[in-house]
């Protein structure tokens, strides 16, 4: 698969899964062996656990919107620089919502094989994430 096809897949994951809640896109683009360890401490192994992660975020932040600020690809990798925004209106990890708005910068590098995302690494401004939510950060 070309770098442009990998970018197109990554773009669809952000726009469909995160911004529209269309989790079917995860079945379309995620390999069974997919692994991701979020800097927020969550771990996804396989498409189903990634769906749970997205659902958790969209429950906590029902107006969740990921803006793609930059994207580049090289070989089997795609990098997205993004802004993660939303309002904390639903329970998250047992924490009651505060109604606060968040706007946090992040970068994700994903690895692709045969048109499927197999692994990802993320850097997120975790301190700002919890500060803006108005909650105490959990242990990592």
């Amino acid at each position, binding site marked *: 698969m070309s770098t442009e096809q990998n970018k197109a897949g990554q773009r669809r994951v952000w726009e469909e899964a995160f911004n529209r809640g269309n989790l079917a896109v995860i079945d379309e683009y995620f390999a069974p062996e997919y692994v991701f360890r979020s800097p927020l401490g969550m771990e996804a192994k396989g498409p189903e656990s990634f769906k749970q992660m997205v659902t958790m975020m969209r429950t906590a932040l029902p107006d969740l919107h990921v803006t793609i600020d930059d994207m580049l690809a090289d070989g089997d990798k795609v990098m997205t620089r993004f802004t993660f925004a939303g309002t904390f209106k639903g329970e998250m990890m047992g924490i009651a919502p505060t109604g606060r708005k968040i706007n946090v910068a992040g970068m994700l*590098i994903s690895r692709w094989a045969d048109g499927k995302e197999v692994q990802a690494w993320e*850097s997120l*401004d*975790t301190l700002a994430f919890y500060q803006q939510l108005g909650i105490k950060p959990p242990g990592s």
Partner: protein
Amino acid sequence: MSIEQNKALARRIVEAFNKKDASTLADLFGPDFVGHTVGKDLTFEEFQKNMIALVHAFPDYAMTIEDLIAEDDKFVARWTLTGTHKGEFMGIPASGKRIDVSAITIRRVAGGKCVEGWDIRDNLKMMQQLGAVPSGPPK
């Protein structure tokens, strides 16, 4: 500049940083460099001050590139920073604790020098490793 030249520039920056070679570092950044860090845009002078503060706080620091990708006029480095907290850092007195944090950096290159950058580091993990943020499950 080719993609391979931009990747070579990334490796030279990390090498100079690890050797505390400030003059080589200054030469690899353009005078109008703008660094977009969390919530703030920095000039090269301000960016340099942050690097000096890091060197002072963690004299044995080492930056390691874990992944390096490039396209067009940009490179992206995923890297880890390790070191021992031996000097004051962001108001936290020396604790002797070890840090091991990951980050991703993007640099835009023009004329063989970095002219714009974006950096995100796991600041929460770093603060927790320094014992500065309460850890454990939220109440």
